[in-house]
């Protein structure tokens, strides 16, 4: 068995690295102000709530769920498939004008209430997957924390506002026959 190489130089190399990063973080300023410690400038850490986020999440990130109210048919599939029952839906039947002149009046379902409790939501995305009428979409927005737990319950209007932030679906790779889905605007 070959003897392992002497470890002493590596030990000092390690010490040099940690002390180097320490000094870089502690004294990032150059020139005459080198000796003024300024760790907030030197560290990689960004003090996020006080300063803007260092990077925006990817467009496909699961930030918040947006609701296109007009597309919803109150089918309750999302509510039933939600693993922790955080979607609350109430609706009623109503009459809508016929599609073409002289036709019969249609019966449609209209939403009274569509709430998602983000205190319970675990961002699994099953509701978005299961929605057959393109009413639910992922948006990468994530800055909606609240001091009070109850304020995390987003109602229909709040969920509708998120629609503006939903990005377009990415185009498929070249040669794909599938039609690219469109986000209803």
């Amino acid at each position: 068995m070959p003897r392992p190489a002497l470890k002493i130089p590596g030990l000092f190399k390690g010490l040099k690295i940690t002390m180097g990063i320490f000094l870089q973080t502690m004294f990032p300023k150059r020139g005459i102000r080198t000796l003024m410690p300024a760790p907030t400038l030197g560290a990689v850490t960004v003090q996020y709530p006080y300063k803007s986020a260092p990077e925006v999440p990817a467009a496909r990130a699961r930030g918040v769920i947006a609701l296109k109210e007009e597309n919803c048919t109150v089918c309750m599939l999302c509510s039933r498939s939600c693993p922790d029952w955080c979607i609350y839906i109430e609706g009623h039947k109503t009459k809508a004008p016929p599609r073409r002149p002289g036709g019969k009046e249609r019966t449609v379902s209209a939403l009274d209430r569509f709430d998602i409790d983000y205190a319970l939501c675990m961002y699994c995305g099953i509701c978005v997957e299961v929605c057959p009428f393109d009413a639910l979409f992922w948006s990468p927005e994530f800055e909606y924390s609240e001091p009070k737990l109850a304020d995390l319950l987003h109602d229909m209007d709040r969920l509708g506002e998120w629609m503006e932030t939903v990005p377009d679906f990415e185009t498929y790779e070249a040669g794909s026959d599938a039609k690219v889905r469109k986000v209803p605007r």
Partner: protein
Amino acid sequence: MASVLALDWGNYWQQSIFRVLGSAVFIILGAGTFVIAFLFKMMSYMQSRLGPMEAGPHGTLQLVAEVGKFLQKEDLVPERADARLFKLAPYVVLASTFLLAVVMPFGPDAYFVNLDTGVFLALGLSSISVIGILVAGWASANKYSLIGGLRAAGQLIAYELPMVLAVVGVVIQAGTLNLQGIVAAQHSGQIFGWDGIGNPFVLTQLVGFVVFLIATQAELAQTPFDMPIAESEIVTGYMTEYSGMRFLLFFIAEFATAAVFSALAATLFLGGWAIPFVDLDDNVMNVVGPLVLVTKMMIVGTLIFWARFTFPRFREDQLQSFAWKFLIPISLVNILATMVLKVAF
């Protein structure tokens, strides 16, 4: 001032109360400073982070918040644990730290107790914490705790030896076991006939200093030697079942012991509370001395924690063979060389 600190007043109980309060202040301030300066800030900066920033300016009051948090937590005792021993163990560990702090000299007349065999007592007292750790590991009724406690015992016994042997070199050179005498010997000493700055033993006993620091690292179970609390293998070793106040006691003891050992290393190797060119018996040293000692203590602490935040953990068998096959022979050779040179000069 001088007579107040030198404890030539009062009866036994008054002196004892003063010593307990004094070492409590030293331990709380020392542990607090070490945690904030090294664990919170230096470690973060070494990883290009900022550490705690919310409580107080730059997170300086974070420790107050942490202590408050621990005091609120429930003090759990496992159902099958030996409850009495389980509750006693952290106090045993902390007691050894308290006793260690008492022997530390801070100035010509600023000490709690000035024993002829101060070093001997300090090294003896530092082993008491092993008992507390073993008791904690055994009484927890948890296999991780037991393995951690046994590892701690094996490690502390193994590294006690090089530590004592490293100190023997200093004792030979100073010619006394008294900590004040060692400080005086460093202040008035000569390095091969040159007495410009006295003789801080770190210069002539460099090998001893390095061995002492490595052994200290192992005694404190700091990272390259943190087998007893190796959190990725055995949860947190003997501390696994502790929560709330008793975990806090272990935590304080860990960092207070780091502070006390740093102060001991500063006294033995860096000249203690004395500074060159200032007379030893100068009354002003009673005020400046503690500050000097704390400064030197922080220097030693920086070295200890620098190594802690740099190196990964040893394997258990490597840890033992490193002590027995490398550190002990090297410190024995150091003693031999010191003896020969002591006689020659």
